[in-house]
C-alpha cells in the first residue's frame, strides 16, 4: 500500500493543465505546417501509448500487435470515406466499434496466454492483419494503399488545415490522458496493479482478473484505432507500410522509454521518441543506427525509463528517503 497518494493525484491534475497549456501554446511559436504535423503525430502517438501503457505498465500484458489496431482504425476510416462516401466522423465511430469488437474477439482467447506466448500471439495477429491489408486489394488497394481520404469536418467547417486538426487531436489527447489518470486511481486501476503483481493472488482476493485484462486490452485497442483514424484523415493516404511490426515495436518502445506504469511516462515517451524519429529522418542511413543505439543505451542506463530516471534524480537532489510513489507501480516487476 502506498502512503500519501492524495498529493500525487492532485499534482496529476496540475500537470494535465501544464501539459495542455504547453501543447496548446506551441503552435503559436511553431507556425510552419510541417511542425504542426509533427505535433499531430505526437498527439496521435500519445493517445495510443497511453492505452498501451495501461495494458503493459499496469496490467503487465505485452502486446507486440498494436500496429494492427492502428491500421484497422486507419483503413476503416479510409475505406468508409473514400469507397462509400461516408463522413469522416462515421469513419472514426466505425473504427472504434470495429476495433473494439476485433480486440474483444482476440482478447478472450489470447489473454489466457502469458508472457512470451502472449507477445507471440499479438505479434502473429498483427502479421495476419498486415497480410490482409496487402492481399485484400479490392478494399485496401494492396501495396498502393488508399489515396484521397477526406479531412474531418463539422458540417461545412472543414479541418483541412493542420492547425485545425491539431486542435481536435489535442482535445482527444487530453481526454485520453484524463481518462488514463482516472482509471489508474480507480478500483479498476488497483485491480490491474494487482493482476500485474500476481494474477493468482489477485484472483484469490476476488478480482475478476480476466475481465479486467480483457477490458484494458479492448480500451487500448480502441485508442489505437482512434489514433489510426486520425492519422488517415491527416495524411490523406494509408498503405500497409505504416502498420508493420516495426510500428508495434516503436509503440512498445515509447511506453518503456518513458517509463512503465506511469501516465506521464507514456506522454513523455511518445513525445520524445516522435521528435527523435522526426529529427533523425534527416540523417538518412544513420537514422536507425542512432535510434537503435539510443534504445540500447537508454535501457542499459535507465531501465525504468525517463520518468524513472528523472524521479531518481529528484530523489537524490531532494534527499528524500522514501521512493516517489508515482513510479511505484513497476516495483513488482523486480520480484
Amino acid at each position, binding site marked *: 500500500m502506498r502512503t500519501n497518494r492524495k498529493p500525487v493525484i492532485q499534482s496529476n491534475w496540475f500537470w494535465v493543465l501544464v501539459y495542455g497549456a504547453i501543447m496548446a501554446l506551441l503552435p503559436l511559436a511553431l507556425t510552419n505546417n510541417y511542425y504542426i504535423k509533427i505535433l499531430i503525430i505526437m498527439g496521435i502517438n500519445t493517445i495510443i501509448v497511453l492505452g498501451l501503457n495501461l495494458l503493459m505498465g499496469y496490467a503487465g500484458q505485452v502486446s507486440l500487435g498494436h500496429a494492427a489496431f492502428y491500421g484497422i482504425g486507419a483503413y476503416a476510416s479510409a475505406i468508409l470515406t473514400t469507397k462509400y462516401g461516408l463522413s469522416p466522423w462515421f469513419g472514426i465511430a466505425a473504427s472504434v466499434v470495429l476495433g473494439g469488437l476485433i480486440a474483444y474477439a482476440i482478447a478472450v482467447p489470447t489473454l489466457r496466454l502469458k508472457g512470451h506466448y502472449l507477445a507471440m500471439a499479438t505479434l502473429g495477429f498483427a502479421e495476419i492483419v498486415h497480410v490482409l491489408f496487402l492481399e485484400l486489394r479490392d478494399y485496401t488497394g494492396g501495396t498502393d494503399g488508399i489515396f484521397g481520404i477526406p479531412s474531418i469536418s463539422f458540417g461545412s467547417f472543414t479541418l483541412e488545415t493542420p492547425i485545425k486538426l491539431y486542435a481536435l487531436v489535442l482535445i482527444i489527447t487530453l481526454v485520453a490522458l484524463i481518462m488514463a489518470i482516472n482509471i489508474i486511481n480507480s478500483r479498476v486501476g488497483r485491480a490491474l496493479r494487482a493482476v500485474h503483481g500476481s494474477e493468482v493472488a489477485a484472483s484469490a482476493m476476488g478480482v475478476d482478473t480476466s475481465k479486467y485484462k480483457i477490458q484494458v486490452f479492448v480500451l487500448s485497442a480502441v485508442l489505437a484505432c482512434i489514433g489510426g483514424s486520425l492519422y488517415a484523415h491527416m495524411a490523406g493516404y494509408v498503405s500497409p507500410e505504416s502498420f508493420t511490426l516495426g510500428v508495434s515495436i516503436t509503440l512498445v518502445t515509447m511506453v518503456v522509454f518513458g517509463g512503465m506504469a506511469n501516465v506521464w511516462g507514456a506522454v513523455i515517451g511518445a513525445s520524445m521518441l516522435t521528435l527523435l524519429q522526426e529529427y533523425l529522418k534527416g540523417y538518412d542511413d*544513420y537514422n536507425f543506427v542512432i535510434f*537503435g543505439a539510443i534504445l540500447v543505451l537508454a535501457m542499459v542506463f535507465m531501465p525504468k525509463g525517463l520518468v524513472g530516471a528523472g524521479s531518481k534524480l529528484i530523489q537524490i537532489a531532494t534527499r528524500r528517503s522514501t521512493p516517489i510513489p508515482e513510479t511505484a507501480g513497476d516495483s513488482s516487476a523486480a520480484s
Partner: protein
Amino acid sequence: MHLDQLLQFIISGITSGSIYALIALGFTLIYNSTQIINFAQGEFVMLGGLFAVSLYSVTHLPLVLAIILAIAIVTIVGVVFERLAIRPLKDSSGITLIIVTIGASILMKNVAMIFWGRDPQTMPPFTGDTPINFFGASITPQSLWVIGVLILVVIMLQLFYKRSVIGKAMKATSIDPTAARLMGINTSNIVMLSFAMSAGFASLAGILITPISMTSYSVGGFLGLKGFAAAVLGGLGNPVGAVVGGILLGVLESVSIGFISSGYKDAIAFLILLLVLFIRPSGIMGSKLRGKV
C-alpha cells in the same frame, strides 16, 4: 494438385523449416538460460550470410574457411552483445530486456546496411546445383546440406547435453538457476555460452540459406520472426520442440503456397500458430510444468 507436386512443396518446406529450426534452437538456448527472448536473433542470421559472402567473394578464401570464419565472427558478436547489453541488465524486468534486444537488432541491421549496402547478395551452392530426382520431385544439393546440417546439429546437441560436463551444467541451469549456482555452476558463463551457441546456430542458418534465397541487410527480421514462431509453436524452451516446430512451420507454409496463394503464406503460418496457442497454450511439445508463477 498432383502427388509429386505436393512432395515438391513438402521438400522445400522441410528445407526452409530446417532453417527455422536452427534459428528456433538459438531462441530456445537463450530462453533456457535467461528466460528472455532475443529479438536480435534474426540479425545473427543476416550477419552470418553477409560475412560468409564477403569472405568468400571479396577475400577469395576457400568456401569452408570462409564459412568457419563467418560463424566465428558472428559468435564473437553474440558474446560481445551479451557482455555489453544483456549482462548489465541481469536483474531488470523481462520487457526491458526485450527492448534492449530489439534496439540491438535495429542497430545491427542498419550498421549492416551501411556496411554492405541494400543489394541482395549471394554465394554459390556448396556442392553444385544439379538437382537429384526423388520420386518425381527434385531436391537440390543445397537442400540436402540444410537438412543434413540440422540433423548433425541436433545429434551434437543431444550428445553435448548428455555427455559433456558443460552441457549438463547448461541443462541444470535451465531447470533451476539458483540450485545450479548453489552447486557451483558459474551460471553467468552459461548465459554467455548460450548466447555464443545461439549466434553460431543462427549464422550457420544464414550461411546455409544464402545460396538458395540470397541475403541482404533486411532478411533478419523475417527469419528471426519465423524462428521465434517455430520456437513458440514447439513449446518455448524445448529443443526438440524447436526442431519439430520449425519443420512443421516450414512445411505448412510451403504447402499453403501450393494450395492457396503465396501472398497469404505468412498469414496462414501465423493463423496456425495462433490456433495452436489457443488450443494448447504451451506449444505442441511444451509441458505445463515450465514457467514461474
